[in-house]
């Protein structure tokens, strides 16, 4: 596998490869999101308890899942950066972090918006919301640390260490918050858990999830390209490209 992967560790190849991916990701994301949103927001049945507000689920849950998933992928990139000294992994971390933070924020905001009709208040210290909030802090820490360094490579390595430390702690934080929640509020708030989802809800949810996932992929590829350019600005291939752009 290493032999197959190796050519992609060249920044120039990776730059053009991700460039080719972006339009495909865009098309797939647009298709899936249009279909999924239409099915979810218009066609799927309203919940017999929650009514129409349940439809926020089609945005909230994909965003929440992606926010966690992106943190893990960032940690994997951090691992590659530390162990194999992959310079491209540095660019990947810097590309993923703000997108992950954005999805975390979306999950938080939609969660709060969902909470207003359900609980009558914008914020409740529900286990999932609290976990998302802490995840947002972790993301912001990663971004702030990366920005604090003048030297990009040094910053990227520091961020790699932090992302790995964070990913080890994430499950511990998650379970301790969940346990804390049951301790203090009792098991009353299970509205997000949707124990057995009807097929009519499940299919639009899956479509929406993949739509958001491809959207995230496209955004990350775009940011990744920018990061690769910024980190290789001294290389001849970047200069050649910049010159070609000018003419």
């Amino acid at each position, binding site marked *: 596998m290493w032999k197959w992967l190796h050519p992609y560790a060249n920044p120039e190849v990776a730059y053009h490869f991700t460039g080719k991916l972006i339009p495909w990701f865009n098309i797939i994301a647009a298709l899936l999101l249009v279909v999924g949103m239409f099915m979810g927001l218009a066609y799927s049945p309203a919940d017999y308890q929650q009514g129409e507000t349940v439809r926020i689920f089609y945005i909230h849950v994909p965003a929440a899942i992606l926010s966690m998933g992106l943190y893990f992928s960032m940690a994997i990139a951090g691992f590659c950066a530390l162990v194999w*000294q992959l310079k491209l992994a540095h660019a990947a971390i810097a590309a993923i972090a703000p997108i992950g933070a954005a999805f975390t924020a979306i999950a938080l905001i939609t969660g709060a918006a969902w909470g207003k009709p359900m609980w009558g208040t914008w914020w409740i210290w529900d286990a999932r919301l609290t976990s998302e909030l802490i995840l947002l802090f972790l993301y912001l820490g990663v971004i702030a640390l990366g920005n604090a360094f*003048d*030297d990009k490579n040094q910053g990227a390595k520091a961020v790699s260490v932090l992302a790995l430390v964070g990913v080890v702690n994430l499950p511990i934080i998650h379970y301790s918050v969940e346990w804390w929640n049951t301790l203090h509020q009792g098991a009353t708030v299970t509205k997000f858990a949707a124990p057995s989802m009807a097929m009519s809800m499940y299919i639009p949810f899956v479509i929406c999830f993949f739509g958001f996932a491809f959207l995230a992929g496209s955004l990350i590829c775009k940011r990744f390209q920018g990061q690769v350019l910024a980190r290789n*600005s*001294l290389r*001849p291939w970047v200069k050649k490209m910049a010159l070609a752009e000018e003419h």
Partner: protein
Amino acid sequence: MNTSSSLVLTADNLSCIREERILFDELDLQFKNGDIWQIAGANGTGKTSLLRILAGLHEPENGNIKYKGTLIGQCNEEYHQDLLYLGHSPGVKAELTVLENLQFNLQLCGQNTDQCVQLLEQVDLYGFSDTLAAHLSAGQHRRIALARLWLTDARIWILDEPFTAIDKQGVKRLEQRVLEHADQGGIVILTTHQDLSLPTSRYQTLTLERVFAL
């Protein structure tokens, strides 16, 4: 001594980029037993970066350093036993006395601390042993750090501007010690802005030039 062990430290194809500026590129260096190397060059040409890369503190953009044929990252403990690096800052604690500072420096490398007072004599700090380092001058701080040179078992010395803030007499004694060490088969790599007063046949100079981006 066979040839393989006389090539103690080698650097292949080193390049260093700092703050988007190429400091040096494709540098190949070989350090043999008995060598004294002076790294020269104007400010900002990467002298300190080169020394830090050789010591393993700074990661080069490209290339690698081998100690006795092994990458230094893979023989940390062995390499650090054989290495004495003195950087820009002398690493002297203001809150500790001169003697405590020296003792700690020696303990950290597993050296015996019985002869500390004699060592202080070597660097003209005799009688200061119980003074807090906070009350001493920059030159005296450097002397505390340098005192280790008279006891160490380390063969490879990497000294970044060792003569800064040292008086003439001290410089002379230090050069003497450097020569002595090389004569015993050690390697000394140092940067300095002054000319060394050692016999020119005895040391090599590597001058780093400013590299401009392609």
